[in-house]
């Protein structure tokens, strides 16, 4: 049974040829394309000249690089997240849901029986539902705030819409009860994988490089790890 009370699973063999093509071939092809595109991008980045610190270090690079990566999970360390715990939670949950969505898209075709366990269905549906709501909330904030509108381009709106729609389709597709929802989920996943290297969603690749360089740079000068201090006087 799913969160909507549906109880009848689709027979996998009854799926239409387009759905099967999407599930079994196309989105793997899309994944291969994405990997290829990112490999090329990463190769380009490695070819570029890094700005190096030639002076004697004042701090600890390694510790600072670790700290730089861990900032993602330490919302109290940055004022921007410390003052907006809700936004940090949205960010964290949304990204976890995306990772689960990708994992689902590649697990379901090869282990659809496993994916029919009630706890898996409930868990994924709840995750995708909340992620879709977060997507809507982020979209509304982007549209509603003049400061956010000023920094938003069509790609920013489109990516958010795409991922929100994908999460919504995942909510319906996970129970494997309606072919149109499966078609939508895998269709969007395939498009998403092809589009990602050209879109702002690529930020997750750059994140690894940026946090490394930021950590190294600030570690060299003993700026990172930051000294932990409260925002206001006790």
């Amino acid at each position, binding site marked *: 049974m799913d969160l909507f009370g549906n109880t009848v699973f689709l027979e996998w063999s009854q799926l239409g040829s387009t759905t099967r093509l999407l599930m079994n071939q196309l989105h793997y092809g899309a994944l291969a394309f994405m990997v290829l595109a990112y490999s090329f991008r990463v190769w380009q980045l490695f070819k570029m000249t890094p700005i190096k610190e030639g002076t004697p270090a004042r701090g600890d690079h390694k510790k600072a690089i670790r700290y730089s990566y861990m900032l993602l999970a330490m919302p109290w360390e940055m004022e921007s997240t410390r003052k907006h715990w809700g936004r940090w939670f949205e960010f964290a949950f949304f990204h976890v849901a995306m990772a689960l969505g990708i994992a689902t898209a590649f697990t379901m075709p090869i282990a659809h029986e496993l994916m029919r366990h009630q706890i898996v269905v409930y868990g994924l549906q709840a995750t995708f539902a909340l992620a879709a709501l977060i997507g809507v909330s982020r979209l509304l904030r982007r549209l509603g705030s003049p400061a956010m509108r000023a920094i938003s381009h069509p790609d920013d709106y489109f990516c958010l819409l795409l991922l929100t729609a994908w999460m919504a389709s995942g909510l319906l597709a996970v129970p494997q009860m309606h072919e149109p929802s499966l078609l939508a989920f895998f269709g969007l996943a395939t498009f998403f994988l092809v589009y990602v290297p050209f879109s702002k969603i690529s930020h997750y690749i*750059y994140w690894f490089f940026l946090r490394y360089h930021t950590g190294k740079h600030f570690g060299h000068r003993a700026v990172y790890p930051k000294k932990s201090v409260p925002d206001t006087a006790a």
Partner: protein
Amino acid sequence: MQRSEKAQRVVDAFKNATKMRQVTLSLAGCAHCGMCNESCHYYLSTGDPKMTPTYKADQIRKLYKKHNDWLGRIAPWWNGGGDLQTDEDLEELKDIVYGSCTMCRRCTVNCPFGIDKALIMRMARGLLTAEGVAPEGVLHVMKDQWEIGNQMGVTDEDYLETLEWLEEEVADELPDFKVPIDKEGCEIVYVINPREVKYAPQSLMAAFKIFHLAGASWTMPSKGWDNTNFGLFSGDNKLGGHMGKLAFDQALKLGVKKMVISECGHGYRSTKWESPNWAGANPLPFEIESFLETMVDYVNQGKIVLDPTKNPGRVTYHDPCNLSRSAGITEEPRFLLKRSCMDFQEMYPNRQDSFCCTGGGGAMSMAEYAKRRIEVARVKADQIRATDAKSVATACHNCEDGLADLIKKYEINIPVHNVCVYVADACVIEDEQKKAMTIMSEDLKAKKILVIDDEPDVVKYLSTFLTDQGFEVITAADGSEGLAKARQEKPDLITLDITMPGKSGVDVFTELRKDPDVGDIPVCIVTGVVDFRKLMYYREVPPPEGYIEKPIDTDVLMLTARRLLEMGH
């Protein structure tokens, strides 16, 4: 549409700049999440959506999107790609990278990615400056650093004469004090901000006192003494390397073990972290440290003893961005202030989260953006006011000026000093032989001072005080009368207000300078507004010899008056 020649060169240079990995990453990696918005004092103070760090960076990022991004090359409208076509486009970009960002890096430490928007801004400044598209003050200072070797165009003679004069001043308190110039084989060479010899020698006198009391083995170079570096602000790495090399060469020649940088945020960052790279001077055979670190060592080693009761009022500390976010110096000033002052009050937020003084990134030299700079200083003013402090300590000369301006504008009315001033005041001197700062030679007492100010209270206060010190004082209530009396009386010194009805202080100053009969008379600006900085940095005529802030500190007034009357500069 055909690009203008300048715009074409800027775009070509931009493509070249994106070969640097960190530059490309900072341009490509932004997710437009807006988390950095509230980290910027420009946005917080104005609420203007065009003042968020991301929006400002996007005005440069649009070039990356159009020329480098895979999708942006085909459909730039889709992801914010754009171009620079005309000279007007370059001027607009100048307004953003110079006039709307102090490169304080507060957004960098608040970005989930660590995107360095200051790096983007500096890169863009470099591209524009190479085409001469930069604030006039910045270009003037750069020229002086290239040609004269320091940012305020101080000649070697004036520099050495000022040091000699300061030596005598300090000797009033410490009779055997000497400033060692070009002394080889010392442990320390001390390099300074030209503002210290040109306008504000209090920090220099404090440093002299501390070196002397600590029994330091130190010297000052006769050349290559400027630790500041407009290469950092203008994005000109060649100038950055040149300024670094001037100082490094002197240190090498003198054979010192350590170069100590006076309290200057960007001076320390440039000299310690950036110039060795720009000048290709790594590794240097001597250490570079901040005077803050030197003072901490002296306290820890018992070379100076501090008595905090000498600074009884509440003091707070402003973290200069270049020290806290680009150089890792946050605890040393706190160590010193807690031992030098009875009541140290932390300012919140602080350290790496501190807000800019609004004078960073060379902003003090950009008179055209002074109004905006002061408007966005509201955030910092609120921070200072909340401490209820009676004075603000900082470790940077730019910050000292920036804070002084906002303190006046927001009517907080407390003084700003460098940390070393508090430390020097707190130093315990055995067999104290202090002489009153107001003791003057008979020669000085015969000097004539013209006070030009439209406020009767200020005129009365200045004339009474200066007359009491023995000077002959004449007064003028407006600019025209001031000009007439200057020409008629030929005073030895003129104190000049800036905001006056009719002829402004700026007009009077310019006319005085252009008149060969009175152009050499030293002028001390006495003002409560920020406009006068244009006179210091734009240099259409030689800049004023001194300035003091309103409300007037009589110690500073007397120090400045004596310096200008005795030396003329």
